[in-house]
């Protein structure tokens, strides 16, 4: 018997380790340093993590015998995660004090969550995926309850209960899948399914559906979306930025790994996923239509966008994968920026009513312009990048034969346009009795918003800036062939 050393190269782990180090540093140094200093340490850690991901690009490195993969798929999702986390941290520099969240535990929890997200995005088997998901979710529950306020505690509890149910279902699905295929790694599962004489179709199908339900909770697919509006609108706005972007990006990364990779040829789930996506599109968009609170509207819009994002999972991963990452990048920029504007103009953590947006253009032209760009982009109007995201998603689904779903998505976009247009137009309609805007610090939020708007516009006019990096089909010939 020979001794085989475990396969633990350091390089593919670096992005995760750096984020984890940042989290530990934030936990420990929080006792000695002021909160702002801790936040800056976190920001530096995130930037270093992104840098290490840059150096790993195209290396295809992996660790723990393929349980952790720093392939381009994972790195692309990782970059988007870092973008969202950076925005959250920078905005919190301005908003945390006002939200009475200005203590280092906020940064520590956020960085732990990012660590989990990165593990999830780079996972190569179901166990790694589950660990990442749980680290991310547990930190997320804490973040949602961090503020001492009834609504936040309610949001956190709801998030925890439903999230825990989702995790439990997911684990059950993992168990059944393992039982059906005898493997936990994505490549192993895919190989087992496509092997001749595979006989456990029913068990596998059940496992796939349970996993779909579990992920459905995490990404807020209808009918598993009920927690979303309460949590996003109940949590402090600066936390909602994080939950609605980074957490969703990571959950979608996991979904792509599982469904477009391991289970790509498994039975049953595509038709159910199609139905869920249609339900999400219809319910998410129609429910947004009747919202009166702007923060809640953004929460429902996050559900609706899950529907559009879900289109890419129905597609061939070679078209759907790049579309998904591109859409998530844009989604992160525009949703985070919209929430950041809310954080600046909200009188309290309940957010702003849609009617209070009236005439914002005449009180604060810059903020109104930023919000208008975000809303136009969310609605999918060119030249903003939201259009490109939608176009890519539609195209990917259409080309894989989901024509009816695509048409439904197009029609529900019309509904989406109406509920984005209403607040966007109100911004520009003069208000006879304007309420004064709260005096809020904008030192960091301002530049973040500027960068986000430039990003939304530039990626809309020149999508190739990001898409060219992602478009290599070989990257997305997901783990199945590896």
């Amino acid at each position, binding site marked *: 018997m020979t001794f085989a050393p475990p396969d633990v190269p350091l390089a593919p782990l670096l992005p995760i380790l750096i984020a984890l180090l940042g989290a530990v540093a934030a936990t420990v140094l929080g006792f000695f340093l002021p909160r702002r200093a801790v936040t800056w340490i976190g920001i530096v850690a995130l930037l270093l993590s992104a840098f290490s991901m840059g150096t790993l690009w195209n290396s295809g490195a992996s660790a723990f015998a393929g349980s952790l993969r720093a392939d381009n798929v994972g790195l692309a999702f990782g970059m988007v995660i870092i973008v969202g986390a950076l925005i959250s941290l920078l905005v919190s520099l301005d908003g945390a004090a006002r939200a009475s969240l200005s203590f280092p535990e906020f940064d520590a929890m956020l960085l732990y969550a990012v660590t989990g997200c990165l593990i999830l995005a780079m996972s190569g088997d179901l166990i790694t995926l589950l660990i990442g998901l749980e680290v991310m979710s547990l930190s997320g529950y804490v973040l949602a309850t961090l503020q001492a306020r009834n609504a936040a505690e309610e949001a956190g509890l709801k998030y925890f209960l439903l999230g825990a149910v989702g995790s439990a279902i997911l684990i059950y699905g993992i168990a059944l899948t393992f039982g059906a295929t005898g493997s936990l790694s994505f490549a192993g599962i895919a190989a087992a399914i496509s092997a001749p004489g595979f006989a456990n179709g029913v068990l596998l199908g059940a496992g796939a559906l349970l996993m779909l339900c579990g992920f459905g909770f995490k990404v807020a697919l209808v009918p598993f979306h009920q927690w979303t509006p309460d949590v996003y609108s109940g949590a402090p706005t600066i936390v909602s930025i994080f939950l609605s972007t980074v957490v969703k990006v990571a959950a979608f990364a996991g979904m792509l790994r599982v469904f477009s990779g391991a289970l790509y040829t498994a039975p049953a789930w595509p038709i159910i996923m199609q139905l869920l996506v249609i339900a999400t599109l219809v319910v998410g968009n129609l429910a947004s239509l009747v919202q009166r609170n702007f923060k809640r509207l953004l929460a429902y819009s996050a559900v609706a966008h899950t529907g559009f994002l879900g289109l890419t999972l129905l597609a061939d991963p070679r078209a759907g994968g790049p579309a998904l990452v591109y859409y998530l990048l844009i989604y992160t920029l525009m949703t985070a920026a919209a929430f950041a504007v809310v954080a600046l103009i909200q009188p309290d953590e309940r957010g702003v009513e849609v009617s209070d947006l009236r005439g914002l253009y005449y009180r604060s032209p810059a903020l109104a312009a930023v919000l208008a760009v975000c809303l136009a982009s969310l609605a999918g109007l060119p030249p903003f990048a939201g259009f490109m995201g939608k176009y890519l998603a539609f195209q990917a689904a259409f*080309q894989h034969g989901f024509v009816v779903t695509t048409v439904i998505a197009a029609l529900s*976009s019309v509904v989406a346009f109406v509920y984005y247009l209403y607040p966007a137009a109100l911004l520009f309609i003069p208000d006879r009795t304007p309420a004064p805007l709260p005096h809020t610090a904008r030192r960091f939020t301002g530049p973040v918003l500027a960068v986000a708007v430039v990003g939304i516009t530039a990626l809309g006019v020149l999508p190739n800036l990001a898409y060219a990096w992602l478009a290599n089909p070989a990257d997305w010939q997901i783990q199945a062939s590896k």
Partner: protein
Amino acid sequence: MIHVLIFLPMLAALIMALFPNRLRDEVATFAAAATLLIGVWIWVAGGAALVSVPWIPALGVTYSVALDGVSLLLSLVTAFMSLVAVVYCARRVQSPGTFLALILAMETGLLGIFAARDFVLFYVFFEDALIPALLMLAIYGKQHRMAALLKFGAYTLFGSLLMLVSIIGYRWLGGSLTFALTDLLAHPVTGRAQLWLYLGFLAAMAVKLPLFPFHAWLPDFHAQNHDSGVADLMGTLYKVGAYGLFRFGVSLFPDASEQLRYPLMALAAFTALYAAWIAFRQTDWKRLLAYAGLSHMGLVGLGLFSLEPTAMTGALYLLAFQNVYTGALFLAAGMLAQRVGNQNVQQGGVMTQAPNLSGLTMSLWFASIAVPGLAGFIGEFSVLLGAYQVSPWLAFIAGLSTIAAAAYALTAYQRTYWQVRPPGTVPAWDLRGSEWAVLGAPLVVAVFFGVYSGPALNLIQPAVRALGGLS
């Protein structure tokens, strides 16, 4: 040069913010005039050849633009009327900076629509023009603008998103590598799929033609827009459905166009007559103009859907020049509103106080109701002549709308400008300074192309003939 033409207005709209308030109208006027000059230059040079560079190579989306024939004519009209709009807006609206920027931003979208030779690029410009139009209505609209805005936006998006699905479908099912028009033409989709894709495309074009029953946004859009009529003029220019049908519809979907020829012609003829009938009952100049425009677009549709060369030529001629005189009439309505305080047609006696305004308005109306010797006549006559050969009855029904036009236009005109000015009303002043040019220049164009149609026909006819093979 063609890229400068397309993007100069947008650039000017963006850098205008850098200039102090009092200089902004000069910047805008300069940019609009320069755009028109570049357009004329391209015209003199015989058009701009196709330029095609990859935009998103992985997806086959290209940036392909060209200006020839019909596109060039419509671009010139757009550039010309945008200049008129800028000149009028700069003097009419208080602190016009934002308004001017929106006009210019919209001009870029419109020029892009006409220049695009890639299906996705066409879509992008098509939607681009929507944002400034919505902002004009939101910032400068009237009391019930929100309803008008949502209606306008939802109708437009409804059509265009279905078109987007069609665009995606056409390339995929046809097997073309790019979305460039030349590539798509080389890889046509046939059979039933073509019909379905055409219906998706038609949804967008029917909203923007507009065609009954997709016209419901139009009257509110015009009634709620700023009194000056500048936004209405831009809205008129944005009615690009007929152009889209000509450039992409007939060439990419020949069989479906043929199959749907009679139903669509019937719908167009009905639109023309129905709109004229409703126009007759309107008491608001802008609503009346909205329905008058709709009626004209019914005729344009009739000509295009008939697939008959004479009628198509006439339709495009009418499309180009109704932009000129309908647009100018919106500005004339704006001038009237500035003088008497509202858009109501029952003013009475404006002629006695403002004879020149009344005279120019009447001449423009003559162009609109197709009096021979003015541009409207050539277009309408050709449409009816051509359509008659395809379907005499439908041509007859649509022809009734030209009679109705005279009735609604002259009745409304009589109530406003003739009759007696009621006692106690504010005296209306006559045209001043640049207002002469704002109404005069479009009228000169309408007269010139009413008498001498050659230059415009030379642009339209080769393009119509190039469609070839059409009966």
